[in-house]
């Protein structure tokens, strides 16, 4: 499964970067989201994946008695997911706003400050 996950991560990175390289703002955001997902999965994979052993201490014990998944990558990814939501929502609204003001979705038309344009 690790090999398959690695390939999936590669595809997510490739797709994310490809979308970031597009000129459309919407595609840029989609690219960032895909790239973020790829990064999350990469951290998850590199923390070593374990099947069927969530890092939750059993009801009747105060320490782990059996194997468990590493909780640190999970904590990191959880944070990352939440933060990236903040970024995404702000970016989406910003695109909407920018479109309303400059009437374009094309990044190439936005690369000058208003004094030069």
């Amino acid at each position, binding site marked *: 499964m690790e090999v*398959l996950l*690695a390939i*999936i991560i*590669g595809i997510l990175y490739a797709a994310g970067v490809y979308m970031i390289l597009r000129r459309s703002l919407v595609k840029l955001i989609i690219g960032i989201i895909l790239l973020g997902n790829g990064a999350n999965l990469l951290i998850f994979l590199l923390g070593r994946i374990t099947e069927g052993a*969530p890092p939750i201490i059993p009801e009747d014990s105060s320490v782990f008695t059996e194997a468990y998944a590493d909780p640190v990558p999970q904590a990191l990814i*959880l944070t990352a997911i939440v*933060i990236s939501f903040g970024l995404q*929502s702000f970016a989406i609204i910003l695109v909407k706003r920018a*479109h309303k003001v400059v009437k374009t979705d*094309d990044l190439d038309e936005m690369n000058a400050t208003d004094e030069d344009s």
Partner: protein
Amino acid sequence: MLTAILLGFLFALFLVFTGKFFRGKLAVLSALIPAGLFAYFASFISKISAGEIITKTYEWVPAFGVNLSFKLDGLSLLFSLMITGIGFLVFSYTASYLKGHKYLDRFYGYLSVFMAAMLGLVLSNNIISLFVFWELTSISSFFLIGFNNDSAASRKSALTALGITGLGGFFLLSGVLLLGSMTGTYNITEMLSMQEAIAGSEYYILAASLFFVAAFTKSAQFPFHFWLPAAMKAPTPVSTYLHSATMVKAGVYLLMRFTPILGDHPFWNNTLIIVGGITMVYTAIHSLFRTDLKGILAYSTISALGILVFLIGLGTKAAFLAAAVFIMVHALYKATLFLVAGIIDHQAGTRDVTKLAGLRKVMMPVAIAGFLAAISSAGIPPTIGFLGKELTYEASLNFGTGTIIIVIAIVLTKIFLLWAGFAAGIKPFMGKLPEAQKETKMPGLLMWFPPIILAVLSILFGIFPSLIESAIVKPMVFALGADASEDHLALWHGFNTVLLLSAVTIGVGLLLYFLVRPSNKLEQKVAKLEFISPRSIMEKGNYYFVIFSRFWTNVFQNGYLRNYVTSIILFLVILVGYILFGHQRLVIDHSQLAEITAYELVVALILVAGVLYTVFTKSRLAAVAAMGVVGLSICLIFVFYSAPDLAMTQFSIDTLTVILFVLVLYRLPKYLSLSDYKMRLRDGVLSLALGTIICVLALQVLAEPANNEIGDFYAKNAYLLAHGKNVVNVILVDFRGTDTLIEISVLAIAAIGVFGLLKLRLKSTDRTQ
């Protein structure tokens, strides 16, 4: 001693708050500071001439060997006396010269900072603090040269001076650090004993070259000399103080200070002789083609600095003796001439030497000062200038190799310097007073008295050289590493070659003065050759550098996001790819890996399909929906591999993102497809390359053993310390609770931003862009 050095800085600070009191009549009081400092340093004369060296060390950054360590020996004593003595005269002169100037207090502030920096520079016994003070002189001189900041020319010349001396500072820092790592100390006294080891080091040439560039830029040596004439835009007190007596001599000081450490090496001596020689002849001849009084003086100053560098290069005891005397000679007569030029400019309203004549009739004392300075500069007895010239000739004659060339160069220089001195000090006062100058008045006492003092000293020291012989000159020669206790300064040396050369110099110089008058024609003639001068070459260099920078910036900062991303990813792919495929053996250890089950494979296929659909669909809504599918597939992967919290978070966030997207989307125009086939292909190849690299990288990391130490700690202590059983939650809200709090604040800020953007009402003018 620290107080003495810091006094200038403190006074400048004091002026910041009390400046308005010093703009008026009280301004002259500030001259008390250099006067007091002069008295303070003069009190050391007897100790120093007895051979004592006074050192004081205050810790600054002892961990790095950087201390405020000061040393007062013959060399620093002479410089300190010049800085404070001429400083005193300039401070008083300024009170009258800039009387009623709006920013007089500011000017005094700059002057005090400069004086303090200069004192720190010549007294530093630690090369790091020497560098710091060196830079401070550059910075304060920038403000002084650009004091008339409403004039564009003045600002430009201040920038030129800062550029050149700043460049030198950079080289000095490199040299200082190199020398520090060669010797293992930053202390100059400690370096003195390592002269042989330094000269034998493979870095000697580099270190010496770095010091050379620093000294040559500061002391305006060829080919960096042009900033000095340009700096004449400064008010005359500045020219007097910085450009005749103190700052430009800092480079000379540096060379002198390091002569016992880096000197006595063919590279050292030859470079100094050649550079000094070229400078003194080239700029002495140049002074012939100027009509601005200060222009003439600027070029003759550079020439005099060239003589000093040249004498240091000769490196014999006689040369050091000559240099020690000539420094004083030059400081005395050149400061006088500058002050006189300032008075003429101030009273007559012009510095054009072709328009000035007969001023002796209105300002006799100034004429006397000018005359005395001129004959001292010409080296006519009984001035100290004569003494300096004799010693210089003697040093050149007895050097040994290439005597003829050396002597011709120095005699030629002295002839032109005589002309320059006469043109600046005598010419404006001779002849008939022109109509235009009839209204010229006598300047105030504060203005004409300083040049008189200096001029009289020129004569006094000439007639009684014993006044300075053992007090100042000999300790200084001693500091340069030679023992001159047997030598005696005297005006009369008997009939010998030196005297003959002197006679020739004076004769030819006077002839030249009567034959060649400063004129605009000469100036225009030489202006035609301006395009091959170092100044225009350097300006052209600057010009092309700016063009190149603009080009470079446009290449890398072109405003297209995708170009930035492309270059970043290209570098990443090339670097990581090179390491991965070039140096690593790629292995996959299948025995360690989990099996692929059927449902995992299905989820993976759905995910890949979702990604491909997101990328290639023409419909924006479909792209967003497919992206949602990708997010949910990832959510399932989290479920499979023991991460229930992640699965829940991913599920809710993914859903929210899709909803938000769809809400916003219907207001946007049609999905854009802006790039052509070629661009897409290029981006596709790049993206796939990155994807492959990441994929291989991930597999390589998996082949390495994992370290779960941190995870184990949390898992072991989650319940025992934090009383929670879901370890991920415990980490987030307990062990790393503060991080989570900050994360929440970030989200709150994003939320405020979103709210603001939604509620923002644009004015009609903003809409039509």
